[in-house]
């Protein structure tokens, strides 16, 4: 439902001194486009360097590994962060990156509780994520400049997994790294223009939650995770 749009927009147009325009798309001809030349000349290895340097500034641990060693590295990182309970996305990439054994056998055998986000379970998922010590998701797009992981939520990819647990680990395939938010925005806009339905919740997450509201002192971990780590994976 849309309420009172016409009278509202008529008034806006009247103030602008013309009749309302709701049908002719205004032409956007920008004189300036600094984003086109910001970090766009870097290759994937150089972007990884940018990401590595940025992670130091945002209190985020960056771990680099290969897809064959990923299982081992993830297991060690989880142990370092104090183990389960763990909340993860229901996401094919866990299988693609060879993590099935770790998730379905190794952890359960060691009494590490792992909960996969299953939409059909409804609010129970939220309760599990809230109890979780660690939330783990893949990054859909990774922004080198700001050290940001972009998550398209929906279905088995619950929004809460990256927000409610005390610690957060993002799995970052190296191929997902782009220079900056510009490239992610262009990709999302391209999908919108192509008529695709974009995720009803896109999160751009840059390190752990923080606040400077008390005497401008940076405090890490206010509402979201207290600690964050990115595991960058050399793709297969």
């Amino acid at each position: 439902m849309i309420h009172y749009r016409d009278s509202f927009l008529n008034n806006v147009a009247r103030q602008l001194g013309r009749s309302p325009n709701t049908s002719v798309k205004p032409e956007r001809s920008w004189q300036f486009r600094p984003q086109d030349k910001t970090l766009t000349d870097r290759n994937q290895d150089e972007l990884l360097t940018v990401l590595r340097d940025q992670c130091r500034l945002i209190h985020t641990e960056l771990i680099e590994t290969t897809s064959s060693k990923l299982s081992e590295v993830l297991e060690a990182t989880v142990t370092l962060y104090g183990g389960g309970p763990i909340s993860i996305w229901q996401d094919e990439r866990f299988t693609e990156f060879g993590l099935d054994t770790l998730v379905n056998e190794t952890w359960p055998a060691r009494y590490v509780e792992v909960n996969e986000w299953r939409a059909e379970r409804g609010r129970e998922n939220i309760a599990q994520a809230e109890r979780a010590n660690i939330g783990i998701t893949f990054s859909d797009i990774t922004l080198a400049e700001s050290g940001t992981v972009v998550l398209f939520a929906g279905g088995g990819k619950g929004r809460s997994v990256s927000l409610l647990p005390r610690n957060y680990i993002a799995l970052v395939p190296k191929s997902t790294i782009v220079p900056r938010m510009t490239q992610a925005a262009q990709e999302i806009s391209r999908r919108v223009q192509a008529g695709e339905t974009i995720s009803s919740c896109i999160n751009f997450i840059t390190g752990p939650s923080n606040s400077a509201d008390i005497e401008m002192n940076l405090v890490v971990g206010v509402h979201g995770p207290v600690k964050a780590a990115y595991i960058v994976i050399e793709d297969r």
Partner: protein
Amino acid sequence: MAMKIGEGKFKENVNKNIEDTFMRGAVASAQERLRTRRLDAAEELGNWEEWRSHGEEIRQHVLNNLDYYLHELAENLQKRGGHVFFAETADEANRYISEVVKANGGKKILKAKSMVTEEIGLNGVLEEEGCEVIETDLGEYILQLDEHDPPSHLVAPALHKNKEQIRDVFTQKLDYKMTSKPEELALYAREKLRQEFLSADIGITGCNFAIAESGSVGLVTNEGNAGLVSDLPKTQVVVMGMERIVPTFEEFEVLVGLLTRSAVGQKLTSYITTLSGPREEGDADGPEEFHLVIVDNGRSKILGTEFQSVLQCIRCAACINVCPVYRHIGGHSYNSIYPGPIGAVLTPLLGGYDDFKDLPYASTLCAACTDACPVKIPLHELLHKHRQVIVEREGRAPVSEKLAMKAFGLGAASNPMYAAGSKMAAAMMKPFTKNDRISNGPGPLKAWTEIREFPAPNRERFRDWFKQHEKGGGEQ
């Protein structure tokens, strides 16, 4: 609380707040940190002027085509199953939101920081309806606990409080027993608020920028509270000022980058979330019902006027962080939730000159605000314009200025009077002069010099100097 935060007169507020040495220290050091961080972030990005120009052209384009983009936004959000309400007044907005809350049987409402909901006084309305309204931004949470102390800064609302004061508030209101260490205070708030998040019925957020092409709203926080507010409650209401919109994700990205760098010197803040309507079929979190309330509340009256550029504002507070006047008088002196240079321009436009005609004078016109603005609003020129309007069209310049100008007019109008007056000036002002500045002037100068110094009349008049040098002839 609406836009106006107190009954005190501007000068009374200034007199009171200028004595508050803690507040002044806190403001000065916060300004220093925020200003330095912004400058560092701008330098690191490079081409800062080009980014500002791009931000400016995007904002100007949006304002000139606002009807098109708001129409498109509503259309696209409706396609995603969201409800859109266009509110011309604060009342209309509040009434609609109250109805949504009632229809959903909402009792507990969680909010993420939003200036426009402060402006329309939403919390008070909902509380009168018997709802519990909880602010989740740490700074706002502190203020709310402390008997609704008003915010004093757009980005860091509790900037005027020190950690001991905050500990005392926690001790009194939350039975807090630990120290005044910020980490301990923040973790305690985290535990308290986490329980509230899980049991809330309705989530209310503001909107940093809506995105027309996809019917989305974008939220920018460091704490992650906006994410939680929009994730857990069954119903979500987003309130946006009507000008806070961009055409596509591409412009969204540019403005978010300008906002986070200018506000806190970060490349991006920890959480930036775009929401496009309610959760989809097969989702287990996110709101089931989604409402967007687009608020005019006086903004359209600014469109098409000499003040239109003030609507370019992205609420980063960079102008506040460089303002020498704000530094001394603090945010509460402005009597508005919008303090500092941007507040001194915007508040009288939204709230009228009756209550706020003093604000355009709370400036030295030094232009630091204009230089800091990431979307190039000519703030000091707009302040000057306000003064022109107040004097010329409204005929209500401050009394002291009127008297002084009248006297100057009389004196300057006749040749002998001017000659005598300017000759006498230096001698007459001598008792009030210190290092060539008058800081405690007599008569009509008193009000002026109470808040700023006046250059002392030169002992040598320009005319005498000129005569002298003319006689000397050819002296290099």
